[in-house]
């Protein structure tokens, strides 16, 4: 990687992180949402330990998926509005890589805080402490996948107005396989079974997505803005 390219990557990443920091309250929203939604389950289902333990893994994964969805359509919206995205597309840098940096920044600012509070969510649902590392590992693999899939879909729907609902309808089915593997790993760990296989599958899909999703994202954005 040439120094120019590395400099451009850092410039994009830094810009998005600084922007997110200037609007810190936006970072807190998905976190609060995940906390409140998880809190609703014991109220609705009763404080029965065994029941909460059984559903804990799935509830936390789905809650975090939905919380990420809340912040997803903002990924390129402001950049399209103020013309920054045009400037990014015209820059003499590979667009896919620059968008990859934007997706990385988005993951760092929305998914990472959620992963940080995941142990708290797990404790609220009485998930055994021994399972929490597996849950975190699954989240570390699933959340970048959601960000990457989401990035492509946000790019595809970039031209349309009120794309939020459409985005949810398109993204959620795509996340089903990842969710099955992640929940499967947590459930296996809870039952004392080997959990490495589903985690490995997730890691393999993530590697594939890291390579392909930014390319698809770049192509989709070029099409979306070409009208």
């Amino acid at each position: 990687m040439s120094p120019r390219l590395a400099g451009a990557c850092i410039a994009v990443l830094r810009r998005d992180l600084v922007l997110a920091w200037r609007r810190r309250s936006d970072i807190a929203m998905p976190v609060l949402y995940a906390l409140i939604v998880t809190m609703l389950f014991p109220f609705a289902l009763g404080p029965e330990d065994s029941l909460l333990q059984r559903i804990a893994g799935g509830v936390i994964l789905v809650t975090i998926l939905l919380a990420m969805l809340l912040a997803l359509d903002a990924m390129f919206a402001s950049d399209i509005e103020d013309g920054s995205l045009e400037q990014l597309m015209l820059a003499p840098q590979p667009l896919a890589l620059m968008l990859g940096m934007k997706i990385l920044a988005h993951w760092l600012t929305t998914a990472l805080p959620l992963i940080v509070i995941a142990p708290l969510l797990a404790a609220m649902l009485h998930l055994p402490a021994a399972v929490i590392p597996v849950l975190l590992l699954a989240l570390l693999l699933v959340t970048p996948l959601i960000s990457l899939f989401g990035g492509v879909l946000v790019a595809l729907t970039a031209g349309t107005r009120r794309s939020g609902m459409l985005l949810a309808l398109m993204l959620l089915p795509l996340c089903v396989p990842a969710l099955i593997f992640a929940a499967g790993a947590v459930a296996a760990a809870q039952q004392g079974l080997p959990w490495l296989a589903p985690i490995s599958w997730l890691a393999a899909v993530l590697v594939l997505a890291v390579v392909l999703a930014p390319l698809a994202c770049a192509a989709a954005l070029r099409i979306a803005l070409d009208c």
Partner: protein
Amino acid sequence: MTVAAAAVPLLEARALSFYRQDEPVFAPLDFQLHAGELALVEGDNGSGKTTLLRMLAGLLHVAAGELHWRGAPLQRDACAGEILFLGHQLGLKTDLSPRENLRIAAGLCGCREGASVEDVLAAIGLRGYEDEPVRRLSAGQRKRAALARLLLLPATLWLLDEPYANLDRHGIALVNGLLENHTAAGGAALVTSHGAVSFHGGEPRHIRMHS
């Protein structure tokens, strides 16, 4: 050899046109732009000036006709960084200061030789506002912050969509000065404007748009 190289136009359009829902946005255009030339794109509202500039920048596909860059069919990768586009959307992050915005632009596109963010901000008339978030600047100051990219980035062809909008008299003189220096240094520029514009340099070329 140098004569032949100089004769090749920087940008050449042949029967260039753009269609939106099978309707032509503007009548086929033919023009050449050589290094050191300034062209004024004229036309009424809705005649396709912005569309033309976006197409030349590579944001829109070439629907009909041909577009050549230095004699070869224009390809985005070949001329990226040589073309600087400044549209109605200024491409400024309003939560960041002019200095931060320019640093990002320089990080993405590189810097003109000998240009620094500080000097450019002073030259464009934003001294004292370097660290103010762009959202607190006036429309004219924002425009200046966007125009600062012209001084900072190393581009040969400037595509400026309404560069005079929101600027005061000094700002307009400033843009004219920038254009003069740029063309004198061998650059070229395509400018849209429906206001009366006077250049101190030679008479600019005119490209008239008809719908």
